[in-house]
Every structure is written in C-alpha cells, then in structure tokens.
C-alpha cells in the first residue's frame, strides 16, 4: 500500500467536493441548520421567552421527567434554565449526530457512484492503484471533510450555547459529559459507519440517487433515538452513548472486513461499468 497514492486520491476527491455545488451546499446547509439555527433558537427562547406559559403541560412534564433522571440538577432553578439544560444536553445531541451522518452519507455515496456516473472509475480501475489503496483513499476522502465539518459545527454551536448558558447560569455549561462522548467518540464512529455503509452500497448500485436513497436509512436509528427520548421510552445519558459507541465499533469492524472482501477489481468493474 502506497501512502502517496492514497493522498493523491484524497486530494483529488477534496477538490471534487469543493467544486461540486450540491455536495458543498450539503456540507454548509446541514450544519448551519442543526448547529447554528437550532441552538440559536433554543438560546433565544431560554433567554427571552416565557417558557412556562409557552410550553404545554405535556412538554413541561417531559422536561421534569428527564431532569428527574439527571442526578446533577443543582443550579436549575427557573423553568427557562431547566428548558435550556434539557434541550442542550438531551435533545440537541441526537440532532447534532445528523450532521456527520448526512454529510458522510452524501460524500460516501458520491465516492464510487460519482466516479461511475462521470465515467472516471474506469480510468482508476485501469491504473495500477490497488483495490485497498482505492477503498482506503475513498473512505479517508469522505471521512476527513465530514469530521472537519462536525468539529467546526461543534465549536460554533459550543460558542452559541455557552454564550446563552453563561447568561443563564453564570458559568460554562458546555460541553457536558454527553457532548464530550458525542464529539470525541460517537460522532467519528458514526461518521465512519455511515461512510462504510455507503461505500458498500455505492460499490453495488449504479446511480448516486439510488445510493443516497438506500444510504438514507441510516438516519432512522437517530430519529428513533430522538423519538425514544422525547416519548420517555429511554434516557440518553453518557452510559447509553458509550454503549452505542461500543456497538458501532463492532459494526464498523464487521463492515471493514466485508469491504476488504469486496475489494475485487473484477466484480467492481463488472458491477459498475458492465
């Protein structure tokens, strides 16, 4: 395996992402919605709105039920503080997870099918690049921008949350244990999982649209997590996030092994080029 070949492939894919309007817009719009707009709205609501009168009884009950499960509730005196604390630490992380999932999903689906649609995969397969170099290059080229976007989004949302949090609590409330596990552990693992799934899918299907449609299914567990949390079925605490991380590590290992088995030039060529 030659690192310079992988680097060449990664550099090319990053140029490709920067110059493809639809890919680039996805990388900007999704983080802006989930990591700037939503935290800003939550912050503004916590700072300026009369939450007690705004929320119905059900929502207030939900906040209390979540808080009931949180041991450290000291400092949460007003309903606005409780609303903000709950929203930031227990609802926002699931939404935040959609950022690496959606960006990685788009980039991963683009990896092989994009080359195939532009009829350039043939050039790559006719070159002396090994299949391992090709797969690792493609995975890295999807992972690096997705992870970078997630990290920058986290920083920006951190600034917004901490600014509002400081005004509400007179101290930094961010990042909490949930967020630290999310950023350092779950987010990169989910990014990798999304890319691996998409690489497998996109090496099998023939159009980007098809790859995206199948790849989109990965969003469902996160939405399930959010609904589960909102309906009180389960509680997403640090232990839960760590447990999910372990499951994802196992899934990633299985999928990586599957990809190395898939790495047959002949079948990729016949599947994709025909």
């Amino acid at each position, binding site marked *: 395996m*030659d690192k*310079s*070949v992988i*680097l*060449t*492939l990664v*550099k*090319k894919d990053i*140029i*490709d992402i920067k*110059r*493809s309007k639809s890919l680039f817009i996805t990388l900007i719009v999704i983080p802006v919605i989930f990591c700037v707009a939503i935290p800003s709205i939550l912050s503004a609501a916590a700072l300026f709105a009369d939450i007690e009168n705004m929320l119905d009884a059900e929502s207030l009950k939900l906040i209390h039920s979540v808080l009931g499960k949180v041991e450290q509730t000291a400092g949460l005196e007003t309903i606005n503080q409780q609303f903000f604390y709950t929203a930031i630490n227990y609802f926002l992380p699931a939404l935040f997870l959609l950022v690496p999932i959606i960006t990685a999903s788009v980039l991963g689906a683009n990896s092989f099918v994009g080359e195939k649609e*532009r*009829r*350039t995969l*043939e*050039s*790559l*397969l*006719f*070159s*002396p*690049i*090994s299949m391992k170099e090709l797969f690792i290059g493609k995975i890295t080229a999807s992972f690096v921008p997705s992870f970078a976007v997630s990290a920058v989004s986290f920083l920006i949302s951190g600034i917004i949350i901490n600014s509002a949090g400081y005004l509400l609590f007179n101290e930094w409330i961010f990042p909490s244990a949930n967020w630290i596990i999310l950023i350092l552990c779950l987010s990169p693992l989910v990014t990798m999982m999304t890319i691996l799934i998409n690489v497998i899918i996109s090496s099998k299907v023939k159009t980007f649209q098809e790859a995206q449609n199948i790849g989109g299914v990965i969003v469902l567990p996160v939405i399930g997590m959010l609904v589960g949390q909102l309906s009180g079925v389960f509680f997403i605490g640090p232990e839960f996030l760590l447990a999910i991380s372990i499951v994802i590590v196992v899934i990633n290992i299985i999928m990586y092994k599957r990809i190395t088995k898939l790495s047959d*030039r*002949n079948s990729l*060529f*016949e599947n994709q080029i*025909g």
Partner: protein
Amino acid sequence: MSLIYVSKLSKRYGNELILKDVNFKADEGEIIGLLGPNGAGKTTFIRLLNGVIHSDSGTITVSGFNPAAQGDEVRKISGIVTESAGLYHQMSGKENLEFFAGIYKVGAAKDQISRLLRLFDLEEHQAKLVGAYSTGMKKRLGLAKALLHNPKILFLDEPTNGLDPEGIRIVLSYLKKYNKETGTTILICSHVLHQLETVCTSFAFMDRGTIVEQGRLKELEEKYIKELEITLETPFPIEPLHNILGFECLRKSDSYITIKLRSKEDISVLLKEILKSHPVYSVVHENNSLESIYFNIREGGNG
C-alpha cells in the same frame, strides 16, 4: 516471443458469450489495428488484456505477465485511452495530469506534464476545466494521460471517435511518430477502417466475439484479393469487345473504365498497351483497401 499472446480466450456475461476462442499475438514495436463492427467484443478484449475483468477460459500473457493474477504489473506498463477518455471534468487539464501522475507514480512528474502539454498543444488550455474542452482537446489530454508513465504498451479504444478530420490526422500522425521514436507497441481498436490503413503495421479482424484473421496488410492482400480491380481515367476505346489484352473491361463513365486484373504485375502490362495509342490520367485501385479485405473476411471469403 510475442509481447501479447492470447490463446483460446473466452468471456461470458451472464448467458451471453462475448468472446469465444480468441487467438491473438502482437510483437514488440507493432501498431496493431483491432478492427470490427460495434459489439464485436473489442472493448471486452482490451479489458481482459488489462486484467480489469477475468476471462472464463483461455490464456493471456502481456509482457510475460498474466493479467488476471498480475494485473497491477500489466497496468504499470500499459497506458489506455478509453472511449469516454475517463477525465475529471471538474478539474483543469493540468490537475488531471497531476492526479494521474500521482496514481501512476510518475517520477519527475512536473517536467513530464509540461512536456506532454506542449506536445499535445494544450499548454494554453492547461488551466481550463476539462468540462469546457472540445472533443479533440479531451482526446489529446486523454492521450497525454495515457503516456504519462511512458508505457510499453498503449491501448486505444476508438481514439478518433468524435474528432474532425484535422483532429484525426493530428492524433494518428502523432501515434505513428511516437511509435517510431519510442518503439511503444500500440493496439488501436476502431471500426473506421480507412483511417488506420496507413498507420498500422498489422491488423486483427474481430467479428462476433472472435478474431477471424490477423496479419500484415500485404499478407492479407495476397490472401484475400485474388482479383484486382482498377479504374483508369483514359479516352481509350473499349467498345465493342470490352476487353484489353484479355482483361475484362467495363465503362464507368465517359472517361473512366474499370478493368479486372489477376495481379499487380498486370497493371504495367496493361498501361504499356494503352499508352501506345492513348494517354492515361489516373489509376485507382478499387478493391485492395483494408475495407475490401474486411468485407471479404466478413463474408467468409477466403479468396
């Protein structure tokens, strides 16, 4: 020993037999024209030679390597221009060459890229996105890409498709010159026969998934052209016998007559006879072209 040697090669896609019992060989330094109608199996054959797909049966050796097991070794020494050229449209010409130079691990890539851009007259357009290139420019860039690593074998799949006559002339004359200077073996797939007649040193004819004939033009002529047909521009009267020295004649128009001969040697005998009394303004061979040979072969005519 041949640089490319293929024996009894077969390839099937599902239930369809694409190649059957293909035998082929190419010596080092040759320019071989692989001719055949669309769908004859030419592209599949090139893919098998490069080891990107596997055969169902048969033997292939390319420069001593088996493409199915040592594909990367074959691909290191071969350059290819596919029909679609396989270039990145969202990158400039220069960026494309830089990328492929990295993939092919070309040493002193910067100099090689500048040399090829100059050679293919693309220096001026090197910073333009390939998506904005004309078909001719894309073909030239594709060729530059294929030559980046100074390959020992060059595979060209329909290299003149979509080019104007000037573009075709430039590409083909360049290939001939390149082959002469470097001794690179070139395999050109095409269905446009007349373009290749003066470029290739030998020809292989592919039809319905197999190579039905292979050889040098002279050998093929001898084998398939048993009766030579020429057209003369001359006021020589052929009526009423329609016969000159026993050769059958036919009036094509006022000043043109078509004559059937047994061999090339008969031409001078015939001309001597006509020139005794009438001028001759032109002599044209009607049926010794590659095209005539091709149709003879396709019709299954072995002379």
